[in-house]
Structures are given as C-alpha cells and as structure tokens.
C-alpha cells in the first residue's frame, strides 16, 4: 500500500490529496477523477468564469428567475439553513460589500456608500423555489465561495470512498476532509497555521474521521490603514469581521465545519465563543490578543 500524493492549485488555493493505494495505474485513475470533480465544481461555481452557474444567476439579477439544477438547489438550501442558524450573519449575498472595502482604503467609507451597497444585500430578499432562484434587485450577487470549497473536499472524499479507498485526506486550501488512517495506524495529523507567526504551527491535531477547517484573517484579509480585517463582511452592518483572528473546527463534514468557522468569525467575541461551545464540536479559536480557546488546544 503506497501513499499517493498529488498537489495542485484549485479555487485559488494550494490543494493536496493523499491516499493509500496498492496499484499504480488505479491510483492515477483515482487522482484523475478527483481532479475532474474539483475542476467541475470550480468551473460550475466560480465568479471568474463567465459560463458558471454563479454568473448565470448574477447576470439575471433584477430580471427573471433562473432555473437551477438539483446540486445548486441543495447548496442554496444549505446556505439558507446557515442563514437561519447564524441569525442572518452567514449570507451568500454579502459578497458585493467587497466594493466598500478595497485595498489601500485609508478611512471608513461615507454612510451613503454603506446605504448603497447594503441595499442590495440580504438573503431574505432572494426568491427561491426548488428549481429556481431570482435576485430581485439589479446588482445583487450571490457567491458560493463560502460553501463550494468545503463541499468539494467532502465530494472528493466521498468519491474516493466509493471507489474503495479506505485511507485518504483531501485538503483544499485548508478545508480538509479525512477518512481512515495513516499506514502506521495513527490518525491523519493536521497542523494549524499560527495566525501571528507565518510558517509556524499553533497546534497539531489528529483527525480521526470527518473534517477540519480553519477560517482566519491572516491569509485572506482586507487592509484598512494599517489594520487587517477578515475578508468576511457582516451583511447587516457592512463592516468586516474584527473579532477572532482564527477559528478551527472539527466536524463530520467539511461543509459543516466550514460554516461553523465562518459563523464564529462573524460573531462578536463572546457570542463567538458561546456559539462554538454550544456546537459541542472540537474547536480552537485565537482572539485578537492571541488567547486560545477550545478543546483542540490540549491535543
């Protein structure tokens, strides 16, 4: 049983897949189908590819409803559940708020700008049926970025599992899904980057099964003056999240871990810790002062 390792770039991040397989030709075939699936999801939901489902929906904003396939419908149902569970903080229409906060900004934008952009944000405004979606106001946008990378990690893992692979790890830019164990019987080990010390690891977690994802303001961030803010913007206030520096969550699926991370990052400090504790999932959070919380610390 050999360890197969492929590294590639997808969805704008460094990715890797590790799995154990005894047959060279078969391992190559499996690597191919994994990459195909990831590229498929990337092409389908990317903001940057004109033919993507995302752009089809966004281009029709203010016009007619757009017909969507079952996979897209299920992802939007999932996003809807996140919206409800986070009291409106997790909102896939909040992407347009990036126009408020471009790099190099020296000061907060004027209230008129806030009004303009917040007017076209709000999942509650979106009209949905099982087979269609309509963005009622021109300029409204939905962004699958908050769910598709994690979903791709889960989907790739499910693919490998269906093909009979029992030990594998799929890492798409820090959204990791695992199955089985390493050759020596030990669980897969994942290092979490130190938010303040680049290149260093703040914790090394053994993941028995399921998934582990990390949200942080250290990789993708918005710089305002000399402050770094998370790229996650509060859809109600229009202001980027400025609470926890990073959150790592372990959950049965990457898509669930990822959503919990995002929701925690968007909440106010105490609210975030309460929320993380209420999930009863293992987590590690680092706040602005560098203080760590969560059961993963002890590993």
């Amino acid at each position, binding site marked *: 049983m050999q360890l197969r390792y492929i590294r590639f770039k997808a969805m704008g991040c460094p990715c890797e897949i590790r799995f154990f397989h005894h047959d060279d030709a078969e391992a190559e075939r499996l690597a191919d189908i994994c990459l195909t699936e990831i590229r498929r999801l990337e092409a389908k939901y990317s903001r940057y590819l004109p033919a993507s489902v995302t752009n089809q929906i966004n281009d029709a904003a203010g016009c007619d409803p757009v017909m969507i396939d079952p996979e897209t419908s299920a992802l939007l149902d999932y996003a809807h559940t996140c919206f409800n569970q986070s009291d409106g903080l997790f909102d896939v229409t909040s992407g347009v708020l990036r126009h408020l906060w471009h790099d190099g900004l020296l000061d907060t934008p004027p209230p008129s700008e806030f009004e303009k952009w917040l007017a076209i944000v709000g999942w509650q405004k979106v009209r949905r049926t099982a087979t269609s979606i309509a963005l009622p106001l021109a300029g409204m946008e939905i962004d699958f970025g908050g769910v598709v990378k994690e979903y791709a990690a889960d989907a790739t893992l499910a693919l490998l599992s269906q093909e009979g692979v029992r030990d594998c790890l799929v890492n798409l830019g820090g959204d990791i899904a695992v199955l089985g164990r390493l050759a020596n019987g030990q669980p897969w080990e994942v290092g979490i980057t130190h938010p303040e010390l680049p290149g260093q690891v703040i914790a090394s977690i053994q993941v028995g*099964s*399921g998934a582990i994802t990390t949200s942080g303001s250290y990789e993708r961030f918005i710089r305002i003056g000399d402050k770094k803010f998370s790229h996650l913007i509060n859809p109600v206030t229009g202001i980027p999240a400025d609470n926890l520096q990073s959150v790592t969550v372990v959950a*049965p*699926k990457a898509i669930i871990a990822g959503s919990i991370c995002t929701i925690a990052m968007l909440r106010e400090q105490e609210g975030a810790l309460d929320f993380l504790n209420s999930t009863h999932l293992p987590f590690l959070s680092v706040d602005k002062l560098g203080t760590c919380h969560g059961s993963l610390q002890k590993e």
Partner: protein
Amino acid sequence: MRLLFLVLVLLGGCETVQPWERGTLARPEMQLDSDPLETTLMEQVYESKEAASGGNGAAGAGCGCN
C-alpha cells in the same frame, strides 16, 4: 425479573444516532455476528455436545452428531 430491568435500563439510554455517526456501528467488530461462518461452526459443535440450543434465529439442518 432482574434481566427485564437490565434491558429496560439499557433501552432507556437510547440516543438518536445521526447517519454520519454510524461509522463505529458499521465496524466488523461491532456486528452482532462478526464471523457468520465461525458462528455456524460453533453453534453446531455446542448444540451437539450440550443440551441447550437456540435463542437467536432459526437453527439449521440437524445432524446425527454423537
């Protein structure tokens, strides 16, 4: 009577198990019968050398074991 009480106590501790939590229950060593072939062999041996038989599922064809 004590047996019945034990069963009720154990059943009272039932929790909902979500589909993704079934992993452990699916393990071979967690099956009620981890090795069906071995179980039939053992059952045959014990049923022909002892008085008791049955308790779970139907017994297979008999033999003139002596």
